[in-house]
């Protein structure tokens, strides 16, 4: 391969990487906050699906992208509220509640999609790349980093904000204490449940946004199970990133890279590997990554355990 085409390949791969990592970054950042508060929300896959569908439906109906993203976040928020009622107030088993949310997400969106959209086949206008003046003209680097849409750029401030809130505010301190030793917060008179609710809801809104990205910036269409496991991958990203938003950003890029490679290799006629094998790449990476990461003890010690007041 000539140098030029090699650089082309790399430039495209890096650009696609960041774009494909974006939904993972949003969802995993939200999940990291949620898990820091001691709530394991494995329903993030379902939340992303609901976000993807609501975003698509809203944008389809109104023609307004911003409204679509807003609807994605709002629906993620509301779904997370349902989860929080079970996980925090009723103190149900969080795994079971999360599975229920996932099944609900898949069933509900598939049903609504078939009922209202499947015959139309019409897509929505997706978020356009926002070329940053001058920088986007740099050869190779420009197309890779500075011709992305707004949401892709937004991952950086979102991750920094999440990190700042968790580690540099009193709220974040309390969230971290709630995930580790909730009684210490309870005896000061603060409500453990309220903090857990807030973390779950932030996680839900970010998960919904990540989902909406799939239908409003990645594809222009909703298809059944469009998330295809991204929520679960986000869950393993959180573990791999040791519950840190900054870590989430880079680990998501790693996973995004496998999505990007997979797509590009499929498009390359010289690669004679069955496309199913390539498609499996991100999932295989997840399994290998989780086998390599032996830092379970970094997990918040009350992760997944409901808090009972004395």
């Amino acid at each position, binding site marked *: 391969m000539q140098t030029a085409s090699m650089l082309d390949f790399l430039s495209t791969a890096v650009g696609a990487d960041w774009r494909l990592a974006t939904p993972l970054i949003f969802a995993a950042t939200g999940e990291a906050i949620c898990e820091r508060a001691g709530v394991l929300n494995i329903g993030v896959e379902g939340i992303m699906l609901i976000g993807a569908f609501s975003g698509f439906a809203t944008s389809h109906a109104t023609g307004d992208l911003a409204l679509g993203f807003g609807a994605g976040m709002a629906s993620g928020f509301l779904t997370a509220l349902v989860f929080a009622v079970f996980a925090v107030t009723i103190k149900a088993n969080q795994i079971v509640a999360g599975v229920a949310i996932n099944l609900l997400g898949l069933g509900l969106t598939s049903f609504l999609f078939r009922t209202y959209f499947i015959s139309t086949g019409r897509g929505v206008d997706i978020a356009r790349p926002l070329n940053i003046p001058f920088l986007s003209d740099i050869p190779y680097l420009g197309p890779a980093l500075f011709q992305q849409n707004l949401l892709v750029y937004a991952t950086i401030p979102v991750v920094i904000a999440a990190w700042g809130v968790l580690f540099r505010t*009193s709220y974040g301190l309390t969230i971290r204490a709630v995930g580790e030793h909730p009684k210490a*917060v309870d005896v000061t008179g603060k409500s453990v449940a309220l903090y857990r609710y807030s973390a779950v809801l932030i996680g839900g809104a970010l998960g919904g946004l990540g989902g909406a990205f799939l239908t409003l910036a990645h594809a222009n269409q909703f298809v059944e199970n469009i998330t295809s496991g991204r929520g679960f991958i986000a869950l393993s990203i959180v573990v791999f990133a040791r519950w840190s938003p900054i870590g989430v950003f880079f680990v998501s890029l790693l996973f995004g890279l496998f999505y990007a490679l997979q797509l590009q290799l499929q498009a390359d006629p010289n690669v004679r590997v069955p496309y199913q094998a390539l498609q499996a790449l991100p999932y295989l990476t997840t399994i290998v990554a989780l086998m390599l990461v032996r830092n379970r003890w970094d997990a918040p*010690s009350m992760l997944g355990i409901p808090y009972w007041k004395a």
Partner: protein
Amino acid sequence: MSVPSAPILQMENISKRFGRVAANAAASIEVGEGEIFALVGENGAGKSVLMSILCGVLRPDAGRILFKGQPLKLGSPLEATRHRIGMVHQHFMLAPNLTVAENYVLCQGSPLRPLWRTTDVAGRIAELSRRYGLEVRPDAFVRDLSVGERQRVEILRILFQGAELIVLDEPTAVLTPGETDRLLKLLRELARDRKTVIFISHKLDEVMRVSDRVSVMRDGRVVFSASTRDTNPRELARQMVGRDVPTDLPARAASPGQVVFSVENLHCRNDLGLPAVRGVSFVIRQGEIIGVAGVSGNGQSELARALAGLIPATEGTIRLNGEEISGLSSHAINRRPIAHIPEDCAANGVVPQLPLTENAILQRYDRAPFATLGLLNVRAIESHTQALVEKFHVRTDGIHAPIQSLSGGNQQKFVVARELARHPDFLIVNQLTRGIDIGASELVMQAILEQRNLNKAILLISTELEELFALCDRILVMYDGRLVGELPPDRGRLEELGLLMTGEAIEARRLREAVAGAVSGDATQ
């Protein structure tokens, strides 16, 4: 202080029920300003509940609290904090994943306040820490601190938050004798600063040493209150238990016989793979109780588990009745005449969800008389369990109740009963009376002495020095995985023992020589 100064706190007729159990039944106490008030009672007497009510963590069903003459809003921790009432809980309220300073500002002020606005915290911590001589590193993570350090951090936090009334729930349960002395001194200093201290304990010697006034709780009621100087430990013990406590343990019967158990140059590792026991040797003879004293975490747990065959010895030999048992599986060791009462029985000695009957046969489920050809003999198991329960007065809802429904003390009694019923030649005991009340302690201590008089060999590992002094024939001191000294059970040498336990072997020898010198000096005069 015989007459309390104007009461700063009055708790009147506090009642609190949990289901069918009355944790507090019209309990009343009165505490004077600037005094050290001791609240004593057995486990489950309702002391912690009463204090949790004071701090607003629990809401009472009835009763009222007057603080400085004003009624306190009940069931609100914020109200307690606002009136500068702070509590050092038995299980510390410190998040291990945060630093000391972060714990101090946890839940203080508005949630959205940035943390860098709290940087004067370190300065204030340093100032308080100088004033009370409590060393605390503000930027250390709590998970890296020892229990004693955590307690200092917790006490200082209460002071940091400006508390004037300080409640300490069994503060000395986790401390070494030296640390205990320092804590008691600190309480005195706090009282001198016009701070009021309430401390919960069931160690009567501490209560006698430090408190101004004392109240005894039993079954949720306050049954006795007095100025400390007007009462005595015997009276307090009687009030706690509700009957006279026999302080005389059975006298020793025979002198030690032949060697039952011997350990030579034993080494083993802890859960993290680090050396925990580093070259321990001793022998135990028939009719002998050997104590192992030490601050927890110096290899005693690993020693007990290695002797019981639960973790492998990396080096050394263990012999029971002359037979080498160090390489054997725990299953094989179970079939030898050796019994093990583990540390924290509720966690390590029983299967919580199983009924008493099944817990009674945990080691012997597969052989006669409890099983024939792989089938359990239910009748034999039930009668055996019933016998254990009756012999040790285990308070239970019946032998088919899950063992976790019993109180900690009753679980302990049950495990002791089970292990003794195996008629061992050698018995390993790790923490016989920790966490159980006087009545139960008395019973299990009697039982251990009976075993000695039956010519059994017993190894008693304990952090409760009282227990060691009361029971042992010799006390070995363990420090940093090694045995660093041996003492007779002589209370006069408590200070020397304390030095050995904290690794000050040289200091300990100096002290012993000084005492010996003084004694011989007296003799020559």
